């Protein structure tokens, strides 16, 4: 009896409860994340046309095809450029907005709501809205600028590579600045008032307080927004798909757009899966680096 009990220890009620809590999530993750991930891995190693399905292993052809595509490296460069521009602008603006509305002044609630409001709109809907605004044939923006006498000719918001990039960045900043402001606002409000009081009593001015107290204590929130912003920008798709379709002249093709193109324009799920695997690997690496930085910041 004793031997049996030693070989098979009974689970304690606490362990059973823990299992009961964990199982639904584990099943969910297995079915909706691990299984698709395995399927993508298998696809990326196989000749897998969209219309006819698995035609057998062809590794590493999908990976070499993906990287040899004339659009691959331009798409990588563009995605990185877009990520840097969006991240710098968004984080700076979000921090400014958070600092503006952090105090409980009479209109602070109103402004917090106004800044956050665009974040409540879906990205596809927001992109469609801006596409309508930007359109030189049906949109009002160009006509308004002409009527105000600010421009002589219709404005081409999406007609050149630079204009298309900046117009898309504007949409993203408009949509997400309020959301990131909220994350930073929570971080700001977690900083105890006593710390500020003590600094003021020590004679620190606003700039010194910001540099020596606000920024260091806000570092976890900044790291979180940085993580979300970089990951979201590297996965950019909806906004470019709707606003530019990768144009003009393939100047705004992102890596995820390339992935979509392989799957649904070129009907080649194998190469699309290989691109997915590459994107996933890069994101994992980047997130690991960012998490390590975050942990170090916490420890310090």
């Amino acid at each position, binding site marked *: 009896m004793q031997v049996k009990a030693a070989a098979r220890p009974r689970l304690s009620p606490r362990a059973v409860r823990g299992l009961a809590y964990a199982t639904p999530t584990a099943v969910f993750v297995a079915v909706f994340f*691990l299984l698709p991930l395995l*399927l993508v891995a298998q696809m990326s190693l196989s000749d897998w046309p969209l*219309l006819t*399905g698995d035609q057998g292993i062809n590794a590493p052809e999908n990976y070499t095809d993906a990287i040899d595509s004339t659009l691959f490296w331009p798409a990588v460069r563009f995605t990185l450029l877009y990520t840097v521009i969006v991240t710098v602008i968004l984080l700076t603006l979000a921090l400014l907005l958070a600092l503006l509305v952090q105090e409980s002044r009479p209109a602070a609630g109103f402004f917090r709501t106004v800044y956050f409001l665009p974040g409540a709109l879906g990205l596809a809907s927001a992109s469609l809205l801006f596409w309508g605004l930007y359109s030189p*044939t049906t949109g009002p923006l160009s006509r308004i600028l002409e009527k105000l006498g600010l421009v002589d000719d219709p404005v*081409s918001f999406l*007609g050149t590579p630079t204009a298309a990039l900046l117009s898309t960045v504007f949409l993203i900043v408009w949509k997400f600045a309020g959301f990131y402001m909220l994350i930073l606002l929570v971080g700001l409000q977690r900083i105890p008032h006593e710390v500020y009081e003590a600094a003021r009593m020590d004679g620190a001015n606003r700039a010194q307080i910001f540099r020596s107290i606000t920024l260091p204590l806000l570092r976890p929130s900044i790291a979180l927004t940085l993580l979300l912003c970089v990951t979201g920008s590297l996965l950019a798709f909806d906004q470019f798909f709707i606003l530019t379709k990768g*144009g003009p002249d393939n100047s705004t093709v992102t890596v995820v757009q390339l992935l979509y193109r392989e799957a*649904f324009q070129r*009907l080649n799920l194998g190469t699309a899966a290989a691109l997915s695997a590459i994107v996933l690997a890069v994101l994992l690496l980047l997130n690991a680096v960012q998490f390590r930085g975050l942990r170090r910041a916490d420890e310090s």
Partner: protein
Amino acid sequence: MGGTAGPPGRRRRLVTGTVALLTAASLVTACGSGDDGSDGGGGGGAADAKGTDDGATLTMWTRAATRPQSEALVKAYNASHKNKVKLTVVPTDDYQAKVGAAAGSKDLPDLFASDVVFVPNYTSSALFADLTERIDALPFAGELAQSHIKAGTYEDKKYVVPHTLDLSVLFYNKDLYRKAKLDPDKPPTTLAEWDQQARAVDALGGGVDGTFFGGNCGGCGVFSMWPSIWAAGDEVLNKEGTEATLTSGTAKQVYATYRGWVKDDIVAPGAREETGTTWTGVFPKGKVGVMPMPSTTLGLMPKDLDLGVAPIPGPDGGKSTFVGGDAIGISATSKSADQAWNFLAWSLGDKAQVDVVAARKDVVARTDLASNKYSKADSRLVAINELVADGHTPYALKFGQTFNDPNGPWLTLMRDAVFGDAQKVDKDNDAVSASLAD
């Protein structure tokens, strides 16, 4: 307590992990299996011209671009037959993905329409049932739009019939023609005349422009430019659809005309970035002189817009059109092929073609009905219907990825030829051929 940390715990984790992995792998294999377990359903069995009307419920998919025509046909069929067709309209941009996903899981509907240029993808992937005997048994088989039948013929078997026809034609604004002192009854018959008339209208000023086209839309480009090349007797692709011939003298002459319109600002604003979403919305505003348009939009034009219709001319005359639109077939996995054929055969009959299709000012799918009681009341309809015989539907297995893909090689060629460095056209043509032969 200690059970989870000791060797038995490690073993248990190992066993659990292995089982989970094996389960996952077997599921993945099951998901990915290319096993063709279907009995094929198929439509090639009985050569009955009428099919069966026994109260079956049929499922059908169509893309949003041709929704009004499909809805009108389905509504009329359901009102007069025991069979009932349940139509699902899928956003145009998502259609290929939806068909592909459904094909993989053997969940295709009984009937599905497709942009005719994508039909070769589906016939070569065996998604449609063989309809050769059924089509040949139709009393009007020889009068069906042959460009659609040809696009749906694979290895000498016919898989689709025309469903909705959409032809590229010139629309011109007669009011603006009068104001520009042009004869409203003399539309252009050569590319040079088109150029002159567009420039004459553009000279009116006051927000009026000579012409318009979708300059960032590959599909719009093939629809608008290629008829001018065909009208001169030239080809754009080889017979197999594996090589492009888009650098002929005629082709370059066509590109040069469009380039001239851009250079001299004869084109309405927005042509350079028009991705195809709003290109048909410019003409109805009444501020454009003459431009290529899809024939299906004729019935949607404002009542007070006095517009004429003319064939798209070649550089020195001639006429042609891109016979687009949707072809439709019975899915290879359908269990109700006889009933589905009943719908298709009815949709091509005199009554449906005249009282449903022609009544809506749409192009009929049969050349023998080009002149009918509705078209007689509107000479523009006769002109459009008669064009079907002069039209082309290009055949290429890789048509979508080469010509419709917004990041594909044809759009690069077209934009270089019209907006950019025209010297690159020869090199771009090689990229188009490479994509076709991919």
